[in-house]
C-alpha cells in the first residue's frame, strides 16, 4: 500500500504541476484583482505540497517496513516480498489472481459498457442486459433456471424504471431503436 501511496502522490504532483501550468493561459480581466486563475492556483499549490507530503510519508513507511524485513531475511514473509520487489506486471498479475478484484474489474467494465450502450440500445434493452451481466459477474451460474430467474428479475427492474422514471416522472429515457409509440 505504501508503494501505491507513492504512486498516487507522484501522479497528483505531476497533475497539479500540469494544471498549474495550464492556468497561465487563463484570461485575466484587466480591471480585476482576483481573476479565474487565482483560486485554482491556490488549490493546486496546496495539492502539490500535500502530494509531496504523501510521497515522503510513503517512502518513510516503506523504509520502516524494509528494515525489520532485512533483519529477519530468513523468516521473510512472501506478502512483504510482493509489496517491495515485484514489477508492475507481476503486481497486476497478482492483483488479477484475486477473484474479488477480478469481479470488481469486470463490474467496472460492465458499468462503462452500460454508459456506452444506454443511448443506442435504449433503457428497455440495456437495463436487463446490465442487470444480467452484473449478477453473472457476482455469481456465475450455468443453470438455465438461474438464467431465467435473473432475466425475470432484470425485466421487473426495467418495469419499475419504466413506471417510476418514464411514466410517473416523465423523464425522457432513451428508447434506442425501439419505436416510441410502443411505450405510450
Amino acid at each position, binding site marked *: 500500500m505504501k508503494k501505491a501511496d507513492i504512486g*498516487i502522490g507522484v501522479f497528483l504532483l505531476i497533475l497539479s504541476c500540469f494544471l498549474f501550468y495550464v492556468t497561465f493561459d487563463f484570461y485575466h480581466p484587466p480591471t480585476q484583482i*482576483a481573476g479565474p486563475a487565482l483560486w485554482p492556483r491556490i488549490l*493546486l499549490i*496546496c495539492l502539490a505540497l500535500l502530494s509531496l507530503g504523501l510521497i515522503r510519508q510513503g517512502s518513510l513507511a516503506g523504509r520502516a517496513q524494509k528494515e525489520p524485513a532485512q533483519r529477519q531475511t530468513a523468516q521473510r514473509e512472501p506478502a512483504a516480498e510482493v509489496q517491495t520487489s515485484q514489477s508492475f506486471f507481476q503486481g497486476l498479475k497478482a492483483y488479477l489472481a484475486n477473484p*474479488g478484484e477480478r469481479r470488481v474489474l469486470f*463490474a467496472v467494465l460492465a458499468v462503462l459498457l452500460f454508459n456506452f450502450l444506454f443511448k443506442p440500445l435504449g433503457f428497455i434493452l440495456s437495463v436487463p442486459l446490465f442487470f444480467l451481466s452484473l449478477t453473472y459477474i457476482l455469481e456465475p451460474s450455468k443453470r438455465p433456471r438461474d438464467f431465467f430467474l435473473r432475466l425475470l428479475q432484470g425485466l421487473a427492474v426495467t418495469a419499475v*424504471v419504466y413506471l417510476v422514471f418514464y411514466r410517473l416522472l416523465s423523464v425522457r429515457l432513451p428508447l434506442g431503436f425501439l419505436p416510441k409509440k410502443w411505450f405510450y
Partner: protein
Amino acid sequence: MDFFSGLTTVFQAANLLLLILGVILGIIVGAIPGLTATLAISLLLPFTFSLEASSALIMLVGIYVGGIYGGSITAILLRTPGTPGAAATALDGYPLMQKGQGGRALGIATTASFTGGIISAAFMIFLSPAISSFALKFSSAEFFALAFFGLTIIFSVSGGSLLKGAMAGCIGLVINTVGLDRIVAYPRFTFGSRSLLVGFPLLPSIIGLFALSEVLRLFLADPKNKDEAPLKVGRILPRWQDLVHLKWIFLKSSIIGTLIGALPGAGANIASFVAYNEAKRSSKTPEEFGKGIIDGVAAPEASNNAVTGGALIPMLTLGVPGDSVTAVLLGALTIQGLQPGPLLFRDHPGVINAIFAGIIVANVLMLIFGLTLSTIFARIATIKRTTLAPIIAIFSLIGAFAGEGSFWHMTIAAGFGICGYFLEKNQFPLAPIALAIVLGPLAESNFRTALIRSNGNPLIFLSSPISVFFLAVAIGSIFFSLRKQRKAGSAKARSEAA
C-alpha cells in the same frame, strides 16, 4: 398573526389530502437517488396552476418537507444519498446499518428531521424579521468565512489520515474549478470539451462517490460466503433514552439548519455537514463518529430539515430564496399572482398563515409516514447481495441521468464511482471530496468577490465580527485536529517501541 385560521385552511379535506400526497410523494422522490425535492416541485408545478394559492402552496411545502427527509432513507440503507443533503447522514447511518442497527438509524433520522422541521417552523413563525435582518448582514467576506469554516469539517471526516483527508478535500475543490468560471464565465480546464463546460455537477458526483463506489465494493467480497447473513434492520421506532441523549443535538442542529437555511445560496447540503461537524466537535466520543453513532445521524438530519423553515424566511419576508427549492417555490408564488416580500404579510395573511400551518402539519405527517414508509423501504436490506448490487447500480446511474436528462451526468456518476472505489481502497476518505464539491462554489465565488470589492485587500475577511468568528473557529478547529493527530501518532509510536 392568526395561526389557527391557517390550521383551519390546512385541515380542510381537500387541502389535507393534497398535503398528505405531497409529503408521501416527497419522501418517495427524495429516497430515489438523483431525484430531489426541487425536481419534484418543478414537475408538479403545472398541476398547481388550477389550484387556489393556499392549496397549491400547502402541497408544495409538503413535497419540500418530505423530499428533504426522504434522502436519508437510502443514505442509511444503501449508502446512496437520495439527495445531496443526505450525504452527511450516510457517514454514520450506513455504518449503523452494517452493525445491524439500521432501524435505529432510520428512527432517529425521522425523529431528528421532525424536530428540525418543527423548530425551524417555530423560528419562521416567531422570528422571521430578526432572522432576515441577520441573513442580510452576510456579504461575500462572511460567506467565504462560513464556507472556510465548513471546509474545516474535512479534518473531522478524514478518518485515520489527516493528510489523505486534506488531499481528498483538495481534489474535490480542484474538481469544482472545472467548467465555466462563476464570475467571468471563462472556461477553465475544459480542454475544448463542451461537456466539461458545465463542470462536475453535485448530484451525479455524490451519487457516484457514495452509491456506485459502494456497489463496486460489494463485488469484492465472496458472494458464496454463507456466513454473511442479510443485514438486520431491527426496531425503527426510536427509544426514549436515545431521544433524551440526543435532545441538545436536536436543538443545536435545528438552530444551525434554520440559520444556514436563511442564508441565500446555502442549503441543506451545507447545513448538514456543519451540524455534523459541530456534533462531533462537542461530543464526548468524537472518535466514534464515522464508525456508526446515532449522534452522527441526528445532527445532519435535524439540520437539513430545519433548512426548510429557514429557507422560507428570506423567501417570504424579502422575496430572496434561501435555496434551490425555495427558488422554485418563489416561482409558484409569482404564478399564483402573489408578490413575496413584506407586502405579502399585509395583503395576503391567509396564504402566509396557511404556509406556516402547512409546514407544521407537513412535519407531523412526515413523522408518521416516515416511520411507516421506512419499514417498507427497510425490506431492501433483506434482498440478496447478488440482486441488490445491480439494482443500486441501475438506480444510481439512471438517477444521475434523470436529474437533467443528461448522458454526461451518467458518465460523471460512473467516473466518480470508479475513482471513488479506488481512492477508498487506498484509504482516501470520500466524505471530504463530497464536502469540497458542496462548499467549493460558495467558497470560491465569495473569496474572489470579496477581494474584488476590497481592491485586493485581504483584510476584508477580518472586517466584520461574523467573519472573524467563523475564521477563528475554523483555524482553531484545524489546530486542534492537527494536535490530536500528532498526539495519536506519538502514542502509537510509543506503544510500538514498547
